[in-house]
């Protein structure tokens, strides 16, 4: 369903061109992923002449709900809800819909059918990377798994890993580590080190979140287990690319979408809804599996390079603005 409310409130006419205002209500803003997502969104907004206002809840779900209420009060042309939880967002989302403000959600189920959803398919990300792990290890390996419950993308990826473990009895998860805070990578490194020492037979680390993966890489480096232990990660950023392509890096593969592209897609969807264009009610941005070999072979050092090399990562046809 596309909204027909080319809301007069959020769009101002000046000299015939419409200035669309969009409010972006984020659960979290810090971290490479969110940064790149935002820069993609901002670039797209600029291109479309959209006035994008960002509300960042800093990981506080209560604050995000409140921000959504406030965004509603400023009567924008559309609202983007970026991550969060159904329970905290359901009521304010309904209020916004009732106020006839079109809504696009990214990676969150707002429990409202009037909302257009954009997803980066965490399940596919997890599937790509675990497939790679299974094929490289032949389904037989001691694995350290990095995971912390309570974060929606991680929980979705975890569900896939559970299934993979069930299907491949040869994969033994000997330790589970993980911590999420402002120094996730460093603290994960210390934990992975301890686990690696306690379990010398480990040959693979599944770290389906790039901060975990970076920590795992550091642990392997510090224990000089390069060559023996491989890291399977997820997500991508400039920093991740340099970590993957570093000499002797154990990080062999990652599965990711281009966060900037996802940001751009989401803004386009919101723009279309604000201006009465047509857009599907559920959009999915597919990930790509990115391997160390390819990155090295093509001498890729940044995400823009990467997008050139993996054209699949750019998805101009999703929510295309004509």
């Amino acid at each position, binding site marked *: 369903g596309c909204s027909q409310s080319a809301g007069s409130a959020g769009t101002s006419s000046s000299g015939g061109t419409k200035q669309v205002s969009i409010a972006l209500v984020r659960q979290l803003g810090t971290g490479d992923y969110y940064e790149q997502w935002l820069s993609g969104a901002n670039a797209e907004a600029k291109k479309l002449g959209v006035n994008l206002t960002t509300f960042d809840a800093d*990981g506080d*779900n*209560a604050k995000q709900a409140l921000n959504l209420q406030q965004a509603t009060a400023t009567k924008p042309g559309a609202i983007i809800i970026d991550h969060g*939880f159904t329970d905290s967002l359901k009521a304010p989302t309904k209020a916004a819909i009732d106020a006839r403000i079109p809504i696009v959600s990214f990676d969150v189920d707002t429990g409202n059918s009037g909302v257009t959803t954009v997803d980066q398919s965490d399940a596919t990300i997890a599937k790509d990377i675990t497939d790679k792990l299974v094929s490289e290890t032949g389904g037989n390996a001691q694995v350290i798994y990095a995971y912390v*419950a309570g974060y929606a993308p991680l929980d979705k990826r975890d569900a896939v890993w559970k299934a993979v473990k069930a299907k491949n009895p040869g994969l033994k998860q000997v330790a589970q580590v993980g911590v999420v805070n402002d120094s996730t990578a460093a603290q994960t490194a210390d934990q992975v080190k301890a686990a690696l020492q306690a379990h010398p037979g480990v040959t693979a680390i599944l770290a389906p979140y790039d901060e975990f993966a970076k920590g795992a890489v550091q642990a392997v480096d510090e224990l000089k287990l390069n060559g023996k232990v491989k890291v399977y990660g997820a997500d991508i950023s400039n920093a991740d690319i340099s970590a993957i392509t570093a000499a002797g890096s154990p990080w062999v593969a990652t599965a990711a979408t281009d966060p900037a592209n996802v940001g751009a897609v989401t803004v386009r969807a919101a723009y279309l809804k604000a201006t009465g264009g047509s857009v599907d009610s559920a959009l999915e941005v597919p990930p790509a599996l990115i391997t160390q070999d390819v990155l090295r072979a093509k001498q890729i050092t940044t995400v823009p390079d990467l997008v050139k090399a993996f054209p699949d990562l750019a998805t101009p046809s999703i929510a295309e603005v004509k």
Partner: protein
Amino acid sequence: MTRTAPTAPAPGEVLPPPREPGAARRSPLSRVRDAIFRYGLLILLAALVVVFAVTQPAFFTTFNLLSILLSVAVVAIVALGVTVSMSVDGFDLSVGSTVSITVMLTAASLVYWGLGPVLAVLIGLVTGTVIGLINGLLIVVARVPDMLATLGTMFVFAGGSLLITAGQSIASGSGYQGAAPKGSFTDAFTWLGQGDVLGVPVPVIVLVVVTVAVILFLVRTRSGRLLRAVGGNREAARLAGARVGRLRVLAYVISGFLAGLGGVLLAARTGRGDVNVGADYLLQAVSAALIGFAVLGANRPNAFGTVVGAIFVGVVLNGLTMLNAPYYAQDFVQGLLLVGALVVSFSALFNRKAAR
């Protein structure tokens, strides 16, 4: 031998009037200084409101102002607890963990155990109170220094909040480790966090009530005054006959209770039990309480200042967001404003002290 013969005062000679520090006549300048010290932060707050209101019409609407209050309600309530423990010259590092575990226990009561909203709220409040009691007993009976004791319980209850669910968050519909849920976040419960009365959000009403109660308690009741006397000088209070141990325990119980109340409201606002959600509340609550020191020239913990401190932070963040300041500039601006206000206030205080 003295060199000079001392000049004996002639009888009846008029001596310079004795200096009376308190009653000295004030110069206009020192009045201004006094005002800056007392009202510096309030003036800055008012100025900010005006600036934001002028530059962004949506800022100065009843709705937005209530939103700001709503955004700081939980922090302010927790910070009032911190203020009470500071009043007794203590420090409660465990409030954030108390919020976390209260949120999780409340959510578990609703969803895992299906106990219904009334029991869930009760369990939340009792949890906070019991943690306060444990802190108080560790400090008073086991004689562990306050910061150390609450550092320990901070870890214990932060860890405990994770143990309840093995690290999972709790949402309506998710039972314990895949089991079927026995209940959910009922509307009656979420009303506490999301509902309103005549347009005023429930948490804001709770905040107002708690603020008034804490101020009255500290300033106008016998226990509150004694509690502050204990904070001012424990031994003096003991020598005057006050039951110092009980009063200190009481302070931590109040602190725990208010953190528990904050946790209940937070669970109701989010409609879920997020793990570790309380961790940020320690620093935020302590910040509010500390900023409160600079309000009305108190230079000590005070409940009114604490609430102003929380609102100050809320206004800055809300206003900057409305002005579309990038999120990464907000801490910086908030910090600069704070440092500026503090320097002006305390330099004025210094001059005031020096000037008398």
